[in-house]
């Protein structure tokens, strides 16, 4: 019987259009994802094969997430259908067993849903055979990933969600509750995404994510490209746990359904019960006697009806109140609002964490969190209620009565639109109240109410008005509630996704406007103007939509299409026509003005077109890459910044010198096309070619420039921003917080490799050869330039910079003079020694805090109010200067300046004695409440100060490994200062983050991973692996010997002229600090990609007579070498690895116990057992317990020590203690 009911269900649902629509959609979507980059499922796949097992598993997983609504539809309709068609009474009277009916239906619906996923499978298989795919990106067909994905994700997810929604649908008989269930699950998914960012919460993340996505991410997080192309994730650990836990929950739901389901027409349905009891006849009353009737009739007489505009408004207000209160009190609204708020509150807990350290809950972050977490709910509420309000009277069969009332037609739609606005205001008000509450609960008691009003109600709120208008329009025009809902969703998705196909203009992406990030320094700044115009434009469009809705509004019986148009014509009265014309005119005028700004005053370039241009530039001018040019030796510039006008003038001159031994006949110049050239003088040369589109010029000398000759190039340039752009408004020149460098604002000598496209796939698509990130290590010619620029070596630098009277303007160098002239402030800065040809200009309204260390002036220029960590920065600067001067050599300057710049970018960057530091990374970090949180403000400051040595003294040549000499060494230097300040336990936690980021970074590699020594500007290597390698090296060699070697190296190569130093030379110095028998660690750390898989297996202790504890520890160790694609080969073990034992926790809340013993042991076998004697009762023990080595499963290096007899020894026994 069960099978027959299931079969009936399958046959029924397969004949429904929903099944076929879903199937085709799934097929098509997957097909597109496989064959194009325009559609991505679960994020970009980079260089991984298009049909890699990882990709297949990921697609199947993500499609089950997207398919939740589908599963819900199939499963809930399987029961709901009977209630809706009132067939329940028939079914329930049949001789069926409850379980047959329930589970038969359930099973049938599940099979149908499963069939839909075959569309995904077909999409991958067919897609990966398409002839236009790059052959190198298609792997062989493998059946296992499909089977695996189906078994691990598709079927469990169908079962889980099917069971949950089946339970809700069956027990509540309410579609609303069922869909609310879906929303709850999505919250679980969203929260797990946030938790994943924090290392310690990952297990929770895996369990909370109902789809198993977080678990899959965890098990596959460190996969390299090679592994993604071949591997299947092991079905263990987080993945297994998550699947089992959720399946159990699903099973529970099914059981509950079965137990609670009443197999009768008077089932558990709430609405049903309500009417059943209330539907008793009114108490029969005798007809009122005739006299009474006369009396009441007389009383009824004087009802005064008044008509006119005032009455219409009264009616409007009454309807708004009715609609809004009805909705606000309704269960769907309350549920969605609660979910939205909950989602928002949870996200705040994880706000902008860096290394697990939170930030102060400042108002703009709260507002951004609302945007990111509450937006979806606001969207759902508006779309849902627009349909609900417009259809309620018709669904309740009240419309005939209401439509015949003497109410103007506009009152009907306007009241519903206004009620939607009321809902919106209630929602935003609620988020604001909750936001302020959250701020207060974290001790942040200065909520910026005005900013809430601006950011929440205007910037975020106004687009929802457009959405409301669109929904009303769609519901009226399409005249079908579901279609209206779907159409609104599709329109929003389309405007969200259209950039993928180069359609980026906000003029046709409904209700959208350019991003408008907020910064405390610059506030909404120059983003206000485009926002205003786009909002005006969409406002006019919305008015048109509402106007059309008015014309087509159905009043009374639904007319046919022709009749609707006839009625609409009838409603197009003179005022209505004038109104529409006005709106249309407004839309055209504002749209035209926007277009004028974005496309005529500025270039409108979709992202991909921009890439095309980069490719074009490279194709045209790369031929000049190796041309010899004179180098800049002196830079003098007068820079006038006009913040209010967002414009800047750059006047100055370069002194060039021919440092080669040959005459130079031509001079190539590159200037950003954004700059307007007023004057550009190259004495003795004529302009041979000028490409204004790309800013490339070629000058030919009348007499070739002789070796050793010098030349004075002078220039007068200006840049100003006119109007506004569609996207990516420049943030370098702003009202408060200008920050630009010579890269974009000064002329450049020769072809600039920095302008090349670096994504290998984008290059291939545009017919460019594979990118060469850096010349080979031993390319001696390349080392004749430093890696920063080939235009100069060390330059003399002198600049005068001016700004408006209320701001301070800064550039590297020492302030020589400051004066005011014509209402502007001037600052003359000069350097007394040559610097690298890289300098920055900043201007803002700052507060300055000054301090000093051994005669070095320390200054922090910060935004008023951002005082939280200023002292910490000064402290870090002092301690860094102290450590670096002691260990690496003297500091070359007499000042260190830290300058806050707006959060449009989040980095800090070291210029000579000047360090711009983003508002978002440190100025609002919250470091006071947890003693062991990682102080990244300290870390970033120390890192940047270290660059004064490792960049501004030691500069690598432009070959592989060059960033080791700057970034890796700055990391190492910062780590040492930090360790002094915060101790080894904090360092251990810091390095866990570094390890995690290194290992996950490997999976996103687009070309090939390289050993540290050969790093090609790969951040996950030079920062993350660099930290680990240098820390491990310090551990083997000792801090002092290592620093001695480094100091010698600095002394040898600092301020060096070409050829520049490189990592071979660096390692030659380091080598001297490494004992002869341990030289192989340099191979492991620098010359190869080395990975370990160390594990503690069992540990136990026995107490000795002398009161000491003997710990016996069984471990396994393994070592691998990986190639650039991540393919591993086993390596013979011949390593010195830590064996450690931990006791009780030292500090409450500290993650690890007190270290009782830690000693390096020589390990040359995979399985070994160690015996360690310690003085206190041991708790944990392990191999490489502090995670100094690169190990993909760092968690299993340590195990609990149990009391009892020592385990049987295996291969080798080594004793120490």
């Amino acid at each position, binding site marked *: 019987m069960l099978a027959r009911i299931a079969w009936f269900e399958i046959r029924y649902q397969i004949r429904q259009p929903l099944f076929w629509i879903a199937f085709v959609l799934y097929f098509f979507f997957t097909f597109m994802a496989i064959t194009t980059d325009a559609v991505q499922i679960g994020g970009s796949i980079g260089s991984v094969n298009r049909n890699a097992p990882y990709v297949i598993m990921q697609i199947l997983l993500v499609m089950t997430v997207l398919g939740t609504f589908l599963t819900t539809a199939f499963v809930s309709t399987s029961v709901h259908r009977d209630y809706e068609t009132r067939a329940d009474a028939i079914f329930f009277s049949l001789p069926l067993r409850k379980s047959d009916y329930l589970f038969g239906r359930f099973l049938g619906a599940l099979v149908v849903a499963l069939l839909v996923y075959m569309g995904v499978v077909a999409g991958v298989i067919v897609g990966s055979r398409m002839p236009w795919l790059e052959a190198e990106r298609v792997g062989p067909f493998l059946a296992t990933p499909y089977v695996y994905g189906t078994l691990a994700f598709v079927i469990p997810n169908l079962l889980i969600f099917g069971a949950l929604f089946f339970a809700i649908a069956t027990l509540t008989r309410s579609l609303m509750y069922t869909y609310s269930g879906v929303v709850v699950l999505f919250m679980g998914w969203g929260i797990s995404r946030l938790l994943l960012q924090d290392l310690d919460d990952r297990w929770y993340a895996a369990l909370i994510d109902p789809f198993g996505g977080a678990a899959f991410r965890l098990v596959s997080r460190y996969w390299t490209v090679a592994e993604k192309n071949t591997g299947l994730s092991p079905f263990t650990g987080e993945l297994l746990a998550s699947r089992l836990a959720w399946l159990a929950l699903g099973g529970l739901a099914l059981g509950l359904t079965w137990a609670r389901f009443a197999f009768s027409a008077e089932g558990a349905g709430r609405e049903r019960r309500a009417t059943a009891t209330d539907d008793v006849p009114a108490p029969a009353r005798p007809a009122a006697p005739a006299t009474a009737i006369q009396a009441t009739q007389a009383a009824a007489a004087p009802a*005064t009806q008044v008509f006119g505009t005032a009455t219409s408004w009264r009616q409007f207000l009454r309807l708004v109140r009715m609609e809004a209160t009805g909705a606000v009190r309704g269960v769907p609204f309350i549920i969605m609002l609660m979910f939205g708020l909950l989602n928002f509150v949870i996200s705040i807990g994880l706000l902008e964490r860096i290394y697990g350290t939170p930030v102060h809950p400042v108002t703009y972050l709260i507002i951004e969190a609302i945007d990111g977490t509450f937006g979806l709910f606001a969207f759902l509420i508006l779309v849902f209620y627009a349909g609900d309000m417009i259809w309620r009277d018709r669904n309740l069969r009240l419309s005939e009565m209401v439509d015949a009332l003497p109410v103007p037609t506009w009152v009907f739609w306007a009241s519903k639109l206004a009620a939607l606005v009321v809902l919106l205001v209630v929602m935003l008000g609620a988020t604001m109240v909750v936001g302020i509450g959250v701020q207060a609960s974290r001790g942040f008691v200065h909520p910026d109410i005005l900013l809430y009003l601006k950011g929440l109600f205007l910037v975020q709120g106004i687009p929802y008005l457009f959405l409301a208008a669109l929904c009303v329009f769609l519901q009226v025009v399409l005249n079908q509630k579901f279609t209206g809902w779907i159409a609104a969703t599709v329109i929003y998705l389309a405007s969200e996704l259209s950039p993928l196909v180069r359609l980026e203009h906000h003029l046709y992406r409904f209700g959208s406007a350019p991003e408008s990030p907020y910064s405390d320094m610059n506030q909404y700044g120059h983003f206000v103007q485009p926002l205003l115009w786009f909002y005006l434009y969409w406002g006019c469009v919305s008015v048109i939509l509402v106007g059309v809705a008015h014309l087509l509004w159905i009043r009374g019986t639904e007319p046919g299409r022709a009749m609707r148009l006839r009625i609409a014509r009838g409603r197009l009265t003179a005022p209505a026509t004038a109104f529409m014309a006005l709106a249309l005119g407004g839309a055209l005028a504002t749209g035209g003005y926007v277009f004028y700004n974005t496309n005529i005053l500025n270039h409108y370039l979709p992202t991909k077109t921009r890439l095309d241009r980069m490719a074009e530039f490279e194709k045209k001018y790369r031929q000049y890459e190796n041309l010899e040019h004179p180098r800049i030796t002196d830079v003098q510039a007068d820079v006038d910044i006009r913040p209010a006008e967002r414009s800047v003038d750059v006047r100055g001159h370069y002194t060039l010198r021919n440092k080669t031994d040959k005459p130079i006949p031509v001079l190539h110049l590159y200037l950003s096309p954004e700059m307007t050239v007023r004057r550009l003088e190259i004495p003795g040369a004529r302009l041979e070619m000028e490409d204004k589109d790309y800013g490339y010029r070629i000058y030919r000398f009348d007499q070739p420039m002789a070796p050793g000759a010098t030349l004075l190039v002078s220039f007068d340039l200006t840049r100003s921003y006119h109007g506004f752009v569609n996207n990516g408004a420049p943030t370098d020149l702003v009202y408060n917080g200008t920050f630009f460098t010579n890269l974009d604002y000064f002329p450049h000598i020769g072809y600039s490799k920095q302008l090349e496209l670096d994504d290998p796939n984008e290059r291939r698509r545009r017919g460019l050869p594979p990118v060469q990130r850096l010349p080979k290590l031993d390319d001696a010619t390349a080392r004749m330039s430093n890696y920063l620029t080939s235009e100069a070596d060390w330059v003399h630098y002198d600049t005068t910079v001016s700004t408006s009277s209320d701001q301070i303007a800064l550039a590297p160098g020492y302030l020589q003079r400051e004066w005011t002239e014509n209402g502007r402030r001037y600052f003359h800065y000069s350097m007394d020694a040559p610097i690298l040809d890289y300098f920055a200009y900043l201007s803002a309204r700052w507060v300055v805090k000054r301090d000093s260390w051994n005669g070095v002036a320390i200054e922090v220029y910060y935004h008023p109010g951002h005082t939280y960590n200023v002292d910490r920065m000064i402290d870090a600067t002092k301690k860094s200067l102290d450590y670096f001067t002691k260990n690496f050599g003297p500091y070359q300057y007499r000042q260190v300046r830290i300058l806050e710049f707006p959060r449009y970018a989040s980095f800090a960057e070291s210029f000579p004695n000047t360090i711009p530091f983003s508002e978002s990374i440190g100025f609002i970090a919250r470091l006071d409440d947890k003693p062991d949180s990682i102080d990244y403000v300290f870390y970033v400051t120390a890192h940047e100060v270290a660059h004064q040595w490792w960049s501004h003294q030691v500069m690598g040549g432009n070959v592989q490994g060059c960033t080791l000499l700057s970034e890796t060494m700055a990391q190492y230097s910062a780590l040492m200062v930090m360790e002094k300040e915060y101790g080894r336990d904090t360092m251990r936690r810091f390095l866990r983050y570094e390890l995690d980021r290194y290992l996950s970074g490997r999976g996103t590699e687009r070309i090939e991973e390289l050993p540290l020594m050969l790093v090609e500007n790969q951040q996950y290597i030079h920062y993350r692996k660099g930290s680990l390698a240098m820390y491990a090296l310090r551990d083997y060699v000792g801090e002092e010997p290592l620093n001695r070697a480094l100091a010698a190296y600095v002394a040898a190569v600092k301020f060096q002229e070409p050829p520049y130093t490189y990592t071979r030379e660096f390692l030659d110095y380091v080598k001297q600090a490494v004992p002869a028998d341990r030289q192989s660690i340099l191979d492991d750390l620098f010359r190869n990609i080395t990975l370990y898989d160390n594990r503690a297996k069992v540990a136990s202790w026995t107490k000795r007579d002398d009161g000491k504890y003997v710990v016996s520890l069984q471990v396994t160790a393994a070592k691998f070498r990986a190639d650039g694609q991540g393919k591993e080969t086993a390596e013979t073990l011949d390593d010195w690895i830590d064996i450690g034992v931990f006791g009780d926790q030292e500090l409450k809340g500290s993650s690890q116990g007190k270290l009782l013993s830690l000693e390096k042991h020589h390990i040359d076998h995979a399985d070994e057992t160690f015996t360690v004697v310690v003085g206190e009762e041991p708790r944990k023990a392990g191999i490489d317990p502090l995670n100094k080595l690169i190990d993909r499963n760092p968690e299993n290096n340590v195990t609990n020590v149990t009391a009892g007899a020592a385990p049987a020894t295996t291969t080798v026994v080594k004793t120490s203690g």
Partner: protein
Amino acid sequence: MTPELSIEGVSKTYPGGVRALDGVTLRIPAGMFGLLGPNGAGKSTLMRTIATLQEPDSGRITFGDIDVLKQKDAVRRALGYLPQEFGVYPKVSALEMLDHFAVLKGIVDARRRKETVEAILQRTNLWDVRKRRLGGFSGGMRQRFGIAQALLGNPTLIIVDEPTAGLDPAERLRFNNLLSEIGENVVVILSTHIVEDVSDLCSRMAIIAGGRVLQSGDPARTIDALRGRVWKKIIARDQLAAVQAEHTVISTRLVGGRTSIHVVAPGRPDASFEEVPPGLEDVYFSTLHDAGPQDAGGRAA
């Protein structure tokens, strides 16, 4: 002086091809007007058209000097409309809902509105249940609520579409009493397929079927016109076909297991027939019968 409702040549064909109204012409003066016809006759279409809820393809309707098809707002101000089927907000009380309707009817003065609503509640005998949720109302209470909202604001054109369908006899009686109280000075159109409602309440009537007006006038006069031409006979059930072939059978009804038929003929067809005094029902069925192959099946109260 109450205006007269005049309907001239109103036709309506639905997109599906169904001709709902076919040149309907009627003059409806003040007083209760019964619109009688079988299901699907076009009654509701006509009612909705008068109530501004639907557009005819052609024709003209005036109410006094109001052009009903063009001056919809003016019609709505004078209108009280009780549709054939209607719902309510289930969670709202009768009092609140009537107050709401009163605002929408233009009674904006709060004190006046309160008086009016309370009076209407009294008049429709809903006073005691005014605070109950409408969702809990019985069918009869709901119909009375419906007429209560229709009567708000003293309308001069009242349209009630099949108000008694589905009511039990006691509720129907009560409802009809209510209708009969409505003043003589307003136009009241009562559409129904229950002949008795018309004969009980209406001073004028029209019979409509297939979208056409088959007959209209004073019920008493139309009955008189049939006097002496209606004959009744009790027959066995299997004889029906034979009798139908021979005579103009306008109605059949079962009486104690046997079939009683009414036949229209200028004189007594034969001795087995006995003359009966005609009722409105006979007028109705004979009119439908004359009109052609309509479903004139013996439907009667």
